[in-house]
């Protein structure tokens, strides 16, 4: 009986200690939720990205004890790239979140109106709704360093050698996932086709057709487009590249957006995919100090989930995931400095995201030289429009194949403002950020 009483006393003591210790830990940590997708038809794309995000935070926690001495709690909530599950995950993780990362254009569109109410910034690097660049309308949304419309503009800049009028009379097809993400560049491409006199041909790929795109590639064979642009995700990329090889479509006329540059997809076709290009705002650099620190503190320590046998450490997507976490962390650092707090709240982190200045000197300080395009956000500009490079598949890996390309902002900006206004009107009353000039 005495023993039982002692055990009960000990258990109660432990429970009390845990109850008091938990809030103390939560207060001294920054919560960084991620609406990730490691399962389902898009898992192949999601896994290396999430691994990169996770490992950068793990490295900072191991090497520096977090950010300025504050540990970061990186927490994934699995969405399977499903919009309904994504919204559930947002609701589940929003309490105490420094920033939210929806990881799908569909989820981003659903979360956008909620972020105004919950006052949590939405970070969607290189994805989401392109007009989110307009900070006056989208106070809580950020899509640095380049938007999809920037991406479409840069691809056209590249294939026309900077003179879009030279595309007159040419036919440009857009092979895209039939999903909000895949449809995102269509308004800009339609506008540019009308302005510069090229024929624009959208070719949708349904979810069930991702791995059997013979009908889409028969259309490409019949229409003979001069260029095929691809907005593919998950298994669609591998399906398209396999069909392109089968159809013998010239690889140097086939260009993807940055989410169509997964090493694992191209490894399926190997040498046959030589010459395939993708526009990308990031370039892998495994020898950089940041990556070597990840190797030392996370990978070699057995704390990483990467597939080392497949060489995932060197992949474009893994290292892009690292860069995406870097953006969140730099926003947190900026908020800590500005507001002189250890654990900034979501509103303060939003300020940090609005004042990101990722320049060459900052990248050198972070040990990430040349890995990402330099960019600077502001109250009015939530993208930064840093530009991108072309990556080319050499049969074994992606290599940098161009100098920095910049989007034609003069052509994009009016459309961004118009569509942002349309969005605000359709979702009235929509709060505008009047602090932005």
């Amino acid at each position, binding site marked *: 009986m005495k023993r039982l009483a002692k055990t009960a006393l000990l258990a109660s003591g432990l429970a009390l200690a845990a109850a008091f210790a938990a809030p103390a830990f939560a207060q001294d940590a920054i919560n960084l939720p991620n609406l990730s997708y490691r399962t389902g038809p898009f*898992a192949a794309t999601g896994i290396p990205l999430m691994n990169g995000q996770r490992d950068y935070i793990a490295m900072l926690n191991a090497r520096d004890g977090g950010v300025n001495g504050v540990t970061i709690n990186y927490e994934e909530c699995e969405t399977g790239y499903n919009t309904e599950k994504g919204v559930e995950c947002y609701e589940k993780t929003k309490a105490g979140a420094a920033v939210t990362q929806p990881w799908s254009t569909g989820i981003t569109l659903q979360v956008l109106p909620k972020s105004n109410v919950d006052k949590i910034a939405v970070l969607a690097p290189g994805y989401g709704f392109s007009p989110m660049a307009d900070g006056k309308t989208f106070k809580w949304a950020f899509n640095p360093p380049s938007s999809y419309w920037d991406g479409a503009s840069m691809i056209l800049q590249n294939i026309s050698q900077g003179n879009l009028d030279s595309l007159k009379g040419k036919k440009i097809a857009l092979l895209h996932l039939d999903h909000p993400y895949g449809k995102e560049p269509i308004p800009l491409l339609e506008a540019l086709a009308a302005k510069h006199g090229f024929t624009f041909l959208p070719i949708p790929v349904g979810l*069930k057709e991702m791995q059997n795109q013979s009908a889409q590639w028969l259309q490409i064979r019949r229409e003979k487009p001069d260029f095929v642009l691809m907005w593919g995700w998950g298994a669609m990329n591998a*399906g398209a590249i396999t069909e392109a090889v089968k159809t013998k479509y010239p690889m140097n006329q086939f260009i993807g957006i940055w989410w169509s540059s997964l090493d694992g997809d191209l490894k399926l076709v190997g040498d046959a995919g030589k010459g395939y290009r993708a526009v990308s705002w990031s370039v892998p650099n495994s020898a950089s100090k940041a990556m070597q620190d990840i190797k030392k503190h996370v990978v070699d320590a057995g704390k990483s989930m990467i597939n080392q046998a497949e060489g995932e450490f060197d992949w474009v997507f893994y290292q892009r995931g690292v860069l995406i976490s870097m953006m969140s962390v730099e926003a947190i650092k900026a908020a800590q400095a500005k507001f002189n707090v250890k654990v900034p709240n979501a509103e303060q982190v939003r300020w940090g995201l609005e004042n990101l200045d990722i320049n060459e000197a900052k990248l050198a300080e972070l040990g990430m030289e040349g890995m990402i395009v330099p960019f600077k956000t502001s109250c009015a500009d939530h993208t930064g429009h840093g530009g991108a490079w072309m990556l080319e598949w050499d049969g074994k890996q992606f290599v940098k194949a161009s100098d920095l390309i910049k989007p034609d902002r003069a052509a994009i900006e009016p459309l961004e403002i118009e569509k942002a206004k349309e969005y605000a009107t359709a979702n009235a009353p929509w709060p505008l950020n009047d602090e932005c000039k």
Partner: protein
Amino acid sequence: MDFLNSILIKPFADMFGAPDFLMQVLWEGLVSGVLYALIALGFVLIYKSSRIFNFAQGIMVVFAALTLVGLHEKGVPAWLALPLTLGVMYLLAMSIERVVLRPLVNQPDIILFMATIGITLFLIGFGEIIFGGENKVMITEQLGIPTGSWEFEPFGGFLSIEQRDVTAVVGAVLLVAALLLFLNKSKMGRAIRALGDDHQAALSVGISLSTIWVVVWFIAGVIALATGIVWGSRAGVSFALEVIAYKALPVLMLGGLESVLGAIVGGLAIGILEKLFEIYWGQPILGGNTETWFAFVLALIVLLFRPQGLFGERIIERV
């Protein structure tokens, strides 16, 4: 007038104007049809013997293909990985019968259907833990499947036939022939058919329900493996393969849930017709991507006239 022309005249003019392209469309449709038929066969076999609509057929395709590739990644040669995968599929069939189906004997159909959803969720989680979610390369060449292509110039045009697709078609035909032979000529096959016709009567003459269920789920596993090899060799092996199972649903509606012949004819018909419709009507008139709904509309039209499907048995109930 232009609209009528685009529906009634232009598509046929295009077909006859470029016969080599039409041949390519028909070939691609045939290959897709064979693959749809294969998936549908897995559903039909299980439904025939147990009246269970097996929601897990799609994930079985993924699981079988991942097991094959996963074993090879662990250093097992392809010639050994193939029978080992078949062994795993047999173990899976046995486990499903023991753990899931046996305790649910005599339960309503909907309970058994829900149980197959449970099997699906389990296999997704289990498969992801064991194999991970990354896209893997199918061991096509190691299995001796040729990967080149034959090129022809019919009518002065161009026709490309992938050797891999020819192998898939031939393999599927052989598999179906073996299956029909097994179902119609072997004692076990007759027992499966008897069970499909009348559970009570079959049990009363001593047919073992457990044995039949294991055999049928194993055959569905073999079909899943064949499907996984063929689809996986086209665009890699990943959990995305699971969604192709949904392509079998209109095939089953069209052909009838309990007809092997229906699955084959339905698969081929949908494969060819959806490709023809997409290329000659869907893309020029509707902007494409009609393959996502065409087969369902076709099946719906058939159901209006034949609720049991083209080859399904007419359901007559005494009231």
